[in-house]
């Protein structure tokens, strides 16, 4: 692939391709639209700064997912977060009545939410999740297993 972006069109293109992907991961982790925006910005600014060179489209996507997971992790606990303006915990995307599945996922621990999201939304394999989150495959399997167990308890009629 070409050395990434140097034109405005390239920037628009990359945002169109990955903004939602990145934002969803951040949202899955934070459950908060405001924090997810901050994380999305951080991910794309890192992209500009580092100007990474990708071998393939898959590689590019994997890069964005990995950085999104990392930024979600580090930005949340950090003193950099500005607490003055952030309205906490708003979820403008869901309807309490219709989005039963999301609310079940939202009740899981944050790390588990990310793994569930990557597995079920991004259709990633355990090996891919392991590489994106920097964990061992067995750790990912355990997290996934526990998450499913918990979801089965909540969503009693659901098939997994």
């Amino acid at each position: 692939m070409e050395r990434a972006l140097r034109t405005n069109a390239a920037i628009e293109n990359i945002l169109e391709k990955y903004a939602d992907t990145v934002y969803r991961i951040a949202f899955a982790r934070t459950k908060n639209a405001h924090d997810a925006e901050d994380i999305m910005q951080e991910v794309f600014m890192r992209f500009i700064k580092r100007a990474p060179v990708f071998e393939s489209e898959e590689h590019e996507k994997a890069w964005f997912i990995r950085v999104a997971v990392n930024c979600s992790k580090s930005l949340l606990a950090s003193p950099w977060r500005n607490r003055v303006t952030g309205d906490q915990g708003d979820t403008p995307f869901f309807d309490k009545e219709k989005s039963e599945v999301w609310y079940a996922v939202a009740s899981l621990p944050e790390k588990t939410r990310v793994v569930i999201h990557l597995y079920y939304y991004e259709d990633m394999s355990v090996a891919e999740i392991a590489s994106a989150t920097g964990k061992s495959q067995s750790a990912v399997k355990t997290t996934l297993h526990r998450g499913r167990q918990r979801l089965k308890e909540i969503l009693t009629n659901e098939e997994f």
Partner: protein
Amino acid sequence: MFGDKYKKDMNNVKAPEDAVARISDKMKAGKPKRTVLTRYIALAAACIIAVAGIAVAIPNAENIGNGISALLGGANFLEIFAPEEPAPEGTEGFKTYNQLCAAITDRVNTYKEDNYYYEWNLGIGGIIDEGVVEEDVPTSDELKGEDILESEPETAPDREENKDFSDTNNQVAGVQEADVIKTDGKFIYTIMKNVLSVFSADEGEVSLACKIILEHECRDMMLIGNRLVIISKNINDTPHYTDTDWNTVTKVYTYEIDEKGKASLADEFVQSGYYISSRMVDGKLILVTNHIPEYTRHFYEKDYEVTRDDVLDNLPRTNGNDLPADCIIVPDDIISATFLVASVYDGKSGESKSTAIMGAGTDIYADADTLYVYCTKYKEDGRHTLINRFYAKNGDIYHTGSVLLAGRYNNQYSFDEYNGNLRVALTRNNDNVLYVLDEKLDIIGEIGGMGINESIKSVRFSGDLAYVVTFRQTDPLYAIDISDPANPVILSELKIPGFSTYMQSYGENKMFGFGNDADIETGWTQGIKLSMFDTTDPNDVKEEATLLLGENTYFAENVLKAVSVQYDKGIVMFPYIDYVNTEYGRFSEIRVFALYTYTENGFTLLGKDVVPYDHNVANVRGIYIGDYIYVITLFYDGNATVNSYTINDLTPVDACKN
């Protein structure tokens, strides 16, 4: 199926369009081309300022800033506005993070190779002076009228029309220094641990108006109008936390105070690094920190090579965003692998501007438009003082030069800018020397021969005169005439027992000295000594009056902040510690708050308040508002008490705790 339903739910989650548009703009701005232009415009502005004759210096420190001088000296306007120009080889003007990180990586790895055997500790090497950071934080009240400000001096109080209360002891009039206690004549604000307390003070009556538990522990505070700007202690989430650990940040909270003294959080600002010092000019906070990148933890690993990604992940930041590449300066020869970060932050608008230079600082001196950050550099021929100068005014801040001077500083009062010249008094090996530097930071005058084999204990500049106290057994007080900057002359030398650690002019022709008495034979210190010097004739300075508090007295707080000398009221007040005999025949430590008046008869005690010894007491401070003295005791656990007294004899009036 769960998976399908989850996808359906999550499909509702979309990156908001306005956020994407904003990020798109930021990304486009982050591209090289635009940065080039911004950079050159900034340079052009710098040149225009230079032409206009306002201090922009060409650094002349060893190996530091060669690139800057090349740029400033060589650039013409055609070149400046040329849109695409290769990166300068030197120290700044980086257009992209690529260039910046390449330079930083290079310097850091060279530094690591050169220093890893003995300076592996976080890459700060010899920068941290023991005790200096603690000793020298700020303050004083005189010199008014001598340091003339170009703009209206900001004063904390809009509330009281006739100011009749004590201010924080500021070195330069109009340049506010931070403290744990502030007052605007109506309220008394205290900060200790993570507790902000607002006391209402009305004709001696004290009541608690507001108490707020802050998110982090805080250490300093500024007051401007109805805004309190509070500076946190160093915040760090690494497990091996110390003040000088990597990834430490400093957080600033702006609180607005309403008419009843209720405080509400209005804005926050975060900056990389541990806190060095701060000032407030024209309502804007100048915040100086040292940023220690995380990769310095690997400095003791011989084979560890710092990578570009290490550097990228650890650039100095404010509010979570990396400083722009063109605001970070990388000298050719770095004194440490850390960053000195300086910001101007406006708590009202939330706007800020920042700059960083590789290196470090231990304390600052600032006047209305210039910030000097200094630290010690160890060399084979003794300690040197490295000074980095910044222009800081009207919300802008940028580096304007560096200089390395032989000798070590005492504290912020060792520095003074007057008529465009920087004057610095340093202890150089076995001598003490006063330097005069011009706007280019070149030495234009210097005088030594003061107190051979002694070291500087205090310095006070007063217009064309400098008073320097050195000490080994006795206290020579030197008066130096600097009216001809190229030829400083020692006018007089007064030898008295003991020495002053802090001096402040008192009225027109007097200088107050606060320090220690000492045995003339041995030089051993013998308790607190107050002196009043008559400086009417600088050729013949006299010690007009002295007061000894007894050989077991000592001072437990930062002298520069805790000693309050109020010429208008004719009072001197300060806390100290004394040992007294108890009924069990043993010495017991007590804290005393003392109020003295000064008349032609010398120092006269007006009253004392004794606080039983409590290891939990952090500060005892006195302020006056109108005809009342308020003694504030701050405890390490965040508690605070305020006791009010009459000013003429220290009769108790009221008391309140938070």
